[in-house]
């Protein structure tokens, strides 16, 4: 079942069409990557999902029914551009945001204590926001996004401003939330984290969805049929109709060979051909990275 679905969403700003018939499907309990170059319309789509703005036409469905005002309380949104009231105390601020998201004060406080402990910032509860480092502020913002335990979480560039250690903490929290059955939309330019976290993605370019689907399937579909063999020895001069050699590189006592296979040849044939003639140390199909796919898709249009 899809937790969230947008159908043919169009949004026009004066002369600029920000979204042009955007339809995405986000399955429940998965991490969905919302990708695209700057200005493609990701933020507009998120603002429509979070009901900050309304679409001109098209609709947003939550669990197969049109989304309502009350659904906002069930969404946690961490915007890309985010700030906190500088003069407010960290705890008060988090409590205020939690209450705005419909939590009772006492419950919000209890939940906050758990999260502050988990993120190791309990000592900062009574400090002013302006005294905090950027990473620390990001933690507070992350907490205020998830504090009210929403079923849908939307993170826009959640890793910016975090050092690798804290980025890992946030990554693990996201996976933990996913395991709890939450649905997560992740908008980021960090393609490595897309590969590590996302189950599905939609790539938006120039106000349209140009690529959508399961991350692994997409990578497989975009495979360029290249394979990498690591062989013992320093020579490789096998020639066959089935493949063309892309590169040969000696590596210590081995040689790394990359070949491009003909499309009508299956893996078994190729492997047998090489295994019969050489001592193979390793053999893998080279899947394209999301980075490659992103660049290829965006620049080809």
């Amino acid at each position, binding site marked *: 079942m899809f937790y969230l679905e947008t159908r043919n969403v169009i949004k026009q700003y*004066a002369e600029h069409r920000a979204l042009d018939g955007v339809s995405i499907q986000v399955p429940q309990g998965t991490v969905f990557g919302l990708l695209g170059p700057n200005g493609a319309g990701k933020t507009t789509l998120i*603002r429509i999902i*979070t009901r*900050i703005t*309304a679409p001109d036409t098209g609709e947003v469905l939550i669990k197969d029914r049109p989304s309502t005002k009350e659904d*906002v*309380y069930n*969404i946690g*949104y*961490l*915007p*890309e*551009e*985010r*700030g*906190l*009231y*500088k*003069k*407010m105390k960290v705890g008060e601020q988090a409590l*205020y*945001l939690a*209450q*705005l*998201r*419909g939590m009772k004060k006492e419950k919000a406080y209890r939940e906050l204590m758990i999260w502050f402990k988990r993120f190791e910032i309990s000592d900062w509860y009574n400090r002013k926001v302006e005294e905090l480092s950027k990473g620390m502020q990001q933690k507070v*913002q992350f907490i*205020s996004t998830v504090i009210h335990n929403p079923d849908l979480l939307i993170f826009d560039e959640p890793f910016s401003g975090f050092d690798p250690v804290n980025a890992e903490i946030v990554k693990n929290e996201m996976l933990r939330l996913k395991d709890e059955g939450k649905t997560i939309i992740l908008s980021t330019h960090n393609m490595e984290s897309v590969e590590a976290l996302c189950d599905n993605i939609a790539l938006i370019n120039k106000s349209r969805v140009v690529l959508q689907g399961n991350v692994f399937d997409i990578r497989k579909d975009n495979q360029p049929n290249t394979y990498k063999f690591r062989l013992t020895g320093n020579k490789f001069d096998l020639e066959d109709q089935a493949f063309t050699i892309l590169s040969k590189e000696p590596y210590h006592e081995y040689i790394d060979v990359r070949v491009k296979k003909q499309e009508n040849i299956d893996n078994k044939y190729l492997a047998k051909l090489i295994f019969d003639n050489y001592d193979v140390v390793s053999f893998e199909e080279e899947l394209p990275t999301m980075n490659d796919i992103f660049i290829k898709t965006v620049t080809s249009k």
Partner: protein
Amino acid sequence: MNTLALVIEREYISRVKKRSFIILTIAMPVLLVLLAFVPMWLSQLNDSGVKNIAIVDKTGLYASELKSTETYNFQVITAAQEDDYKKQIGGDIYGILTISNDLSKYPNSVNLLSEKQAPASLQSLIQNALNEKVTQQNLDNLSTQSNVSDQSIKEVRSIIEKGGNVTVSTLKWGKDEKASKTSTEMATIVGGAFTMLIYMFILMYGGMVMQAVQEEKKSRVVEVMVSSVKPVDLLIGKIVGVGLVGITQLVIWTVLTLVLFLGVSFVYNTPEQAQLMAQAGSMGMGDIDVNNIMESIVSLNWVEIIIYFFVFFIGGYILYASLFAAIAAAVDSEEDTNQFMMPITILIVFAFFAGIYSIDNPDGPLAFWTSLFPFTAPIVMMVRIPFGIPFWQLLLSLVLLYGTFILVSIAAAKIYRVGILMYGKKPTFKEMMKWMKYS
């Protein structure tokens, strides 16, 4: 609790808890009371020592007329002692009063020698005593002339003693067909004060709303906020919250000032202090009858004035605050803000001057038209209300003001809603008009 209430609560609490707010709120009334009472108290401090005045009276006619008081001790010395005493001036002797001739014939033949400039109270004390004596002398001279009867002299004396204390009471013909006592001065002072107050508060608290919106936009807090609060609620919450802060401050100022004034005057209210107060007063402003002041203060319709003050304050504040908020939301940088602020600032300053000039002529055409025009009405109307104005004008002004503020705040809310999430390019007025049409 719904989100609007939460926003109002935060805006209110975070400001009221600020140290600067608490200090200003408490300090102002204290300062006001200090300003009123300290000069009086200080002048009294100076008077605490008895000043010795030596009198050299070559005529022998006047020395006995100068009676020592609590502050001034007069002592008669001979002309031979004068040089001796001169050396003591500034020490035991405060000054030497020399009367060299008959004052009824040579009124200028008297002088007071002192190290410092003699205080006005001493001068008037001596002058009054001497004047009275000279009048007596002149009357005595008159009575010795054969063609004037004793009876006439007696009458003249009694007339002079009674004096011709003319004071003009200004009366107001009320609807109840009863003339009530009013005071033009009091109406002027009260009107001016309330105009200042409303002008100050609109600028101060309107500016506060603008600053808050600007800060929210600049720090991108608003991005986090709009996902759970409707922009309109955010705007209303801000305007209401800050407005409540203003009203809180006003109420505290009023109550505290009243309590302090009453408290201080109670402490001061011994008969001799009252006399001193009257003296201090009479020096500055001529004879003011304390009763008269009280009467004219009471005669103003305070309940009406205060109710209208709040009504006009709320209208004017919301009108300007929503304009300020819309501008702050639409524009990114402070430099650009100034450009959009200009026309509004000019309006407010114009209103202020219109108010000031209307004090002299509260029913003139300037006062009339500017007190109907919604953008100047809150400020100018406060000048006119203490003088009393026709009810239909008040009503019309209020209807116009509240009608305008509803329209303006709806437009402002639309600009705010779009502008608050736009960054970068400075919008033009034309674009802002377009934003109003977005659904």
